[in-house]
């Protein structure tokens, strides 16, 4: 086999090496270092570098190099490099700065009309001159290298935009939640007896939903529903909300309007979570069909409704109201137990008991229920009750 043929075969295999490296799944630093090795191994040079043009700074910097440790590309005339023919290798013997830095060949890298950077090579190890065939091959390799760097730059640009959007989304989300809390505070402030009620119901609902294995998107939905479930009370008069004596039939009818009013207010908002408005509308429904406003039964009620119903009732039981004293936690649990199958769902009750037990045992890093319960109550008094309920409901 002639030496020319051997050289041609070696060059073809070098192009294959280049193809493998630029399509590899390696990170960009490894990829571009490998590309430089391919170039240096192909032309048998011991000095070589790939440079990237940083548009915002209008300067070129090394992204891979060997043998140019002392070179400072910031001193190189970027404009002059850009004025050279696109992707065409050329000897730089006439340029004292580049030649002084040890550059023998320079290829300005372009993709369409975008200046990407450059590849620079020193003399061949053998000190032979670059042949016309070498320069042709170098042109092909340089073009591929330019595309690789450009793709990376595009990807990085997209990643930066994505990160900016993510931060913006987080910021909007925070503002959204702050607004929700302000709204909830406005609702709760109307009734002196229900201070922080919406906040607690949201927290209890989150705890139950997580225990049921809901994904975080849906958990956020039930959290929002918890915050806004009583928004309709903004329309009910303060006198009625804070009335100490039992309601008349008309007053009771007026009070019951709040869930439908909440639904009407909330329906105007396009939430990213499904069913929030319906969960709010039905949070006073019962499994036995004796709830309001639509007298739905078990089969018609979603888990979201069942969660919010139980969370709302538990908080109502364990906090003081205008017309009654608050229950202790044990009594509230017994009360919930007595209303299973008529008001509350077994599965939801089981999840509530389990998560409460986990929080008492300190198994959850961020408890949602315990921080809101009566601090004077000895929690060990309900451990056995919870165990019994869990055992009973698990059967």
């Amino acid at each position, binding site marked *: 086999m002639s030496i020319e043929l051997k050289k041609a075969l070696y060059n073809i295999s070098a192009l294959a090496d280049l193809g493998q490296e630029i399509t590899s799944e390696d990170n960009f630093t490894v990829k571009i270092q*490998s590309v430089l090795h391919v170039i240096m191994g192909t032309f048998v040079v011991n000095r070589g570098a790939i440079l990237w043009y940083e548009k915002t700074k209008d300067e070129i910097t090394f992204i891979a190099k060997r043998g140019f440790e002392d070179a400072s590309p910031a001193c190189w005339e970027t404009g002059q490099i850009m004025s050279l023919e696109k992707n065409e290798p050329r000897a730089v013997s006439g340029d004292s700065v580049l030649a002084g830095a040890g550059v023998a060949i320079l290829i300005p890298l372009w993709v369409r009309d975008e200046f990407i950077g450059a590849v620079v090579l020193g003399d061949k190890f053998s000190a032979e001159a670059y042949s016309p065939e070498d320069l042709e091959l170098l042109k092909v390799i340089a073009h591929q290298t330019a595309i690789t760097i450009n793709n990376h730059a595009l990807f990085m640009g997209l990643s930066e935009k994505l990160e900016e959007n993510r931060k913006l989304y987080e910021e909007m989300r925070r503002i959204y939640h702050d607004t929700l809390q302000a709204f909830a505070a406005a609702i709760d402030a109307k009734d002196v007896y229900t201070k922080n009620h919406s906040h607690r119901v949201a927290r209890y609902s989150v705890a139950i939903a997580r225990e049921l294995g809901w994904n975080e998107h849906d958990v956020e939905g039930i959290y929002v529903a918890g915050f806004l479930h009583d928004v309709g009370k903004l329309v009910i008069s303060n006198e009625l909300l804070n009335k100490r004596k039992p309601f008349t039939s008309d007053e009771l009818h007026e009070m019951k309007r709040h869930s439908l009013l909440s639904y009407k207010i909330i329906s105007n908002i396009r939430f990213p979570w499904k069913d929030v408005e319906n969960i709010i509308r039905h949070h006073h429904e019962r499994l036995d069909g004796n709830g309001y406003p639509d007298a739905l039964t078990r089969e018609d009620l979603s888990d979201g409704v069942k969660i919010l119903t139980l969370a709302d009732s538990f908080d109502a039981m364990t906090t003081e109201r205008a017309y009654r004293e608050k229950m202790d936690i044990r009594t509230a649990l017994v009360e919930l137990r007595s209303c299973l199958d008529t008001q509350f769902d077994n599965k939801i009750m089981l999840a509530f008991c389990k998560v409460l037990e986990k929080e008492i045992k300190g198994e959850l890093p961020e408890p949602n229920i315990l921080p809101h319960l009566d601090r004077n109550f000895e929690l060990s008094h309900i451990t056995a009750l919870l165990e019994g309920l869990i055992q009973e409901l698990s059967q």
Partner: protein
Amino acid sequence: MKSTAFNVASKCQGDAAVVYPRGYLNNIAGESLVSECHNVIGQGAKKIVLNFRETDFINSIGVSLLLNIIEDLNNIGGTLCFAEMSKIHRDTFEMLGLTKYILVFNDENEALQYLSTETS
């Protein structure tokens, strides 16, 4: 071409070091070979035998890495021997003009024997 995991071993033999690249010398993992040679040079060895018994494949990246080693030894006036290299790789190195800078031997003992007669 799928690479096999590349690793390097070495041993000292008198004033020479024998370095064993194992696996395909076709990606950046081969830089460990350059590092190993750099280490043995740092320990005083000026004569290195690279035994390619367990290296079935060397591509352009491998050539670039070997060029680094050749240059490192050239800079200190050392001697680099290649041993047990396949014919195809030997032909490639010859075609690239690199055999001017290295000594090629059929086996490691032959290379070590030659180096033992060479004046340090």
